[in-house]
């Protein structure tokens, strides 16, 4: 008997979206609780006292925080439609790329909050380097990071297939292009066509407006 699964999330966050994708991919029913981050709930404060951040997964009342930890928990608890390879070495490789993606967050953050000039040129160059590594050494000639089908690495990097386009639009620099990063560009298209992903993306216009205001706040705070 399935004990209640709850996801505490925030609609524009790629971190909470990853958790939703994993649960949906495995056909796990859950209740979604939208958190107002400007007025954090008792539930959030109690379930994630250390970081007070979303996403949090609650399973039978037990809370798990940090999206990478949540994804591994989901994979271990609901083994159907596996999102990690069976073989130990391939699993290690998948975890390596998930960690790589997480570590490089600040690189893209710098691009997101950059304004035109030297700072932005450098940020774009750094971001492009990361994307090249992902394409050449992570993806290779595969359709997905998971091979023929998506796995946790695709989910962890899934923000590049939707949120990153908003960043590109806001800074007016296109990095993932068919001429510069053909395989990664193809991955973006393929990823967005996976039914679970396609049906679970925040509205692009609404997201763009939200990210625009975040960017403006960050820039004015500098």
């Amino acid at each position, binding site marked *: 008997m399935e004990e209640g699964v709850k996801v505490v999330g925030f609609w524009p966050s790629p971190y909470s979206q990853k958790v939703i994708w994993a649960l949906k991919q495995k056909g796990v029913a859950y209740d979604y609780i939208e958190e107002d981050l400007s007025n954090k709930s008792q539930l959030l404060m109690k379930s994630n006292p250390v970081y007070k951040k979303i996403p949090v997964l609650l*399973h039978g009342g037990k809370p798990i925080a*940090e999206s*990478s930890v949540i994804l*591994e*928990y989901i994979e271990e608890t609901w083994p159907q439609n596996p999102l990690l390879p069976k073989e130990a*070495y391939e699993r290690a*490789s998948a975890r*390596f790329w998930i*960690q790589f993606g997480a570590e490089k967050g600040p690189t893209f953050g710098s691009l997101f909050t950059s304004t035109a000039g030297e700072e932005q040129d450098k940020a774009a160059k750094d971001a492009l380097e990361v994307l090249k590594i992902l394409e050449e050494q992570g993806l290779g000639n595969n359709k997905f990071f998971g091979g023929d089908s998506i796995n946790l690495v695709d989910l962890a990097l899934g923000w590049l297939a939707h949120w990153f386009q908003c960043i590109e639009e806001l800074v007016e620099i296109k990095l993932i292009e068919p001429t510069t990063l053909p395989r990664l560009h193809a991955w973006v298209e393929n990823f967005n066509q996976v039914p679970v992903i396609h049906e679970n993306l925040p509205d692009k216009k609404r997201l763009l407006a939200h990210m625009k205001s975040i960017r403006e706040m960050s820039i004015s705070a500098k």
Partner: protein
Amino acid sequence: MEEQKSEAVLIGTWRSPYCQRVELALKVKGIPYEFIEEDLSNKSELLLSYNPVHKKVPVLVHKGKPIAESLVILEYIDEQWGDSPKLLPEDPYERAKVRFWANFYDQKIMPATLPIIMSKGREQEKAIDDMNELLREFEDGMKRDFPGKFDFDDSQNLGFLDIVVATYAGNYKAFNEAVAVAMSPEKTPQFWSWVNALKEHPLIKETLPPHDKLVAKMREKFYGQTTNV
């Protein structure tokens, strides 16, 4: 082919806590391995070919295939040699808690050392206060999530978090001497008594670097001071 399976090579440095984590995991599991000491100021072709993305140690090479990133390596070791003492618990929720705190340690506590090293006077005092707050958070977390964690005795098997913490905090004496600080251990007494208990574990005792050698290396690395040891 048991012999084939144990072909493990660890590329690392004697002073890196991340490398010591891997050594400890291999030792806990009783896996024979070859240690290749890397000169990070002059990185070898071997390292660059095995870890082209980060060019860092540790790298575990097993049956010719490289794995990088210490926590990823630890999980690999636990899975690959699944039938010897387990580093991670079996239950998914318990595993999630271990991973959460290992991440907290690596992402919050370890980087908080740098400001202590790099600053002086009031700034350094603040950096130490910040670190103690993080250690308090960690201590509270251990008590909340792993009751009995601090009742560690050295006849126990080392687990994932024991390895993550001992390889870094276990060198506190050398750190305090090299950086000439007092860390106020009375602020998180249970954390430090746990660390001291861990340091008595035979495998940790033999794996942590020798004190004087580490002090000299830290002084050299942090402040460019060279001494004759």
